[in-house]
């Protein structure tokens, strides 16, 4: 029985090495650029899910973008991440690695008005905001404010919410500041209005 176990382990190890070597050949043929961009939205969720399993979250602005590359490849080995998950998380962290603007509070008149958003508020929330704020707005990581609190963040004046999302915001006790536009620079003024409308109608009223 004992010898059988050992033989089985040797066989498993040999098969794994075989798979790995065959993968090497295909990887050489692919020769993707470094680092290949990942999926921002998936990366945000995978960042929140994967990192908190072992340790407190490290905010995106704790390291430089290049330092995050080595850190994420180290974590790929340590946490058993796939290459794709690693690239997704790296993309999210690097995109969110922005300091909050130091200029005085902006006015709504400074905001560039855009055309009507082509996405619904829920679509934008699910893509950009859900990783940190959670599927129901209660917060997915320590320190993120509960958006369902009747007297909480969403009870602030509309223009304040709009400016906070555009500029980014550091909540007391939160692991990281909400980056400008939630870390998604592609969001327009209309996109942000759409997501605030969605939150006020569907989340803040819970």
């Amino acid at each position, binding site marked *: 029985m*004992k010898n059988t*176990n*050992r033989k089985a*382990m*040797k066989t*498993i*190890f040999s098969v*794994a*090495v075989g*798979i*790995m070597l065959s*993968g*090497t050949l295909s*990887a050489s043929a692919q020769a*993707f650029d*470094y*680092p290949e961009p990942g999926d921002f939205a998936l990366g945000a969720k995978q960042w*929140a*899910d994967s990192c*908190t*399993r*072992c*340790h*407190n*979250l*490290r*905010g995106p602005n*704790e390291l430089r973008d*290049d*330092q995050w*590359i*080595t*850190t994420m*490849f*180290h974590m*790929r*080995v*340590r*946490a*058993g*991440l*796939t*290459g794709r*998950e690693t690239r997704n998380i790296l993309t999210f962290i690097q995109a969110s690695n922005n300091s909050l603007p130091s200029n005085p509070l902006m006015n709504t008149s400074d905001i560039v008005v855009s055309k009507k958003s082509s996405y619904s508020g829920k679509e934008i929330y699910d893509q950009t905001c859900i990783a940190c704020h*959670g*599927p*129901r707005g*209660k*917060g*997915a*990581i*320590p*320190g993120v*404010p*509960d958006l*369902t*609190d009747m007297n909480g963040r969403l009870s602030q004046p509309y223009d304040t919410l709009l400016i906070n999302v555009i500029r980014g915001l550091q*909540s007391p*006790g939160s*692991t990281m500041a909400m980056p400008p536009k939630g870390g998604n620079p592609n969001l327009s003024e209309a996109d942000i209005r759409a997501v605030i409308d969605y939150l006020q109608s569907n989340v803040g009223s819970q």
Partner: protein
Amino acid sequence: MKKMCAQIALVPVIAMVGLSLPVSAAADASLETLKTQVEQLQKQLEIVQARLKEQEQRSATKEDVQQLEKEVVQASEWLSPNTLVHLAGYGDVGYTKSYGDNDDGSFRVGTFAPIFHFQYRDLVMLEAELEIEVEDDGETNTALEYLTIDVFMNDYAALVAGKFLSPIGQFRQNLHPSWINKMASAPPGFGHDGAAPVSDVGFQVRGGLPEFGGIRTSYALYAANGPTLNFEDGELEGIDAEGFNEDADGDKVFGGRIAILPISNLEIGLSGATGKAAVNKDDGEPIDIKLEGQRDYDVYGADFSYQLTSANVAWLQGLGLRGEYVKSKVGSTDKGEAASGGATWTSWYTQAAYRIPTTKIEGVVRYTDFDSAINSADQKQWGFGLNYLFSNNFIAKFNYELNDGVDNDSEADNNRFLFQLAYGF
């Protein structure tokens, strides 16, 4: 008549003087005006000259522009080099007081553990961690915690070759750094010379598998030199599983771990290894391992981790639960100087940590039951911790351990207070 002529002659003189007086006054005024204008122009010229000088100082010369262009080129080179170098790691200091053996308490330097990362694009990374510690007598010990070359073969496999942290369980490979460990000490049995192997030297394949039906899976498989055994007072005293550079007994150990995440915040892991091991130290003295009988060596582990990060109940967010079980078993032999029966080391712990939402305060409770082959090392422990998180990587820990050993006079029976400042970088 003469008087009259004189009077007549005076008239034009008086007239001339009278006429010349206003002309002279007008010339003086004009001169003053001119003088004022010149002074104003001088002042304006000085201002213009000062501004010009200031402008010159601010302006870039052609040489400045060329230098700047060169710096920009150099900077852009550093933005995307093929080789990346990064220094990470952790360190801790603190204070420990043990109750029961007249210990007055001591300030302590824990571990300084720099981690070096050298990466070439997304192909390979060399990573190494040093473990530098100060002993009670002031000696500084330096050890190589791990040194691996990680080759990223494809999206699902990395070859990890060298001295690596044992993939058995979670604590040794992922949780032992002081800025990650919620308590100031390792659970009994999961430190050095415990039930759980620390590291090994060999080859490992590990990674994550494609998500299937929302379920994620990670794995690690390895072949390594395996441990050696210590023999003391006629019985097996401990397993040295700290990564030896020689396979002294000539028989490799094969093992691995598989972890399943049925939901994103729950991880369940199973691990194990099997091989042979032999005694190489008797009462602390080296003996010829080739003359010693080969013993069966098996280790099994199970672990879980559950983080309530997006709980329905807001105040439950920040609650983390985890637990781990490990059993190391060594068989018997009737050959050699250290011929004896087998031995087993078992330990398990479970831990709950809760960070009060929107605060920097965290409470921790951990229970451990360590059953060693040496009875005096047996220990049941309740650990209570209060942590203050200055930041997520800089933590102050206040711990109290209620320790229960088999022998009332043993170190394992003494309660302890520990204070630790841990910093991860």
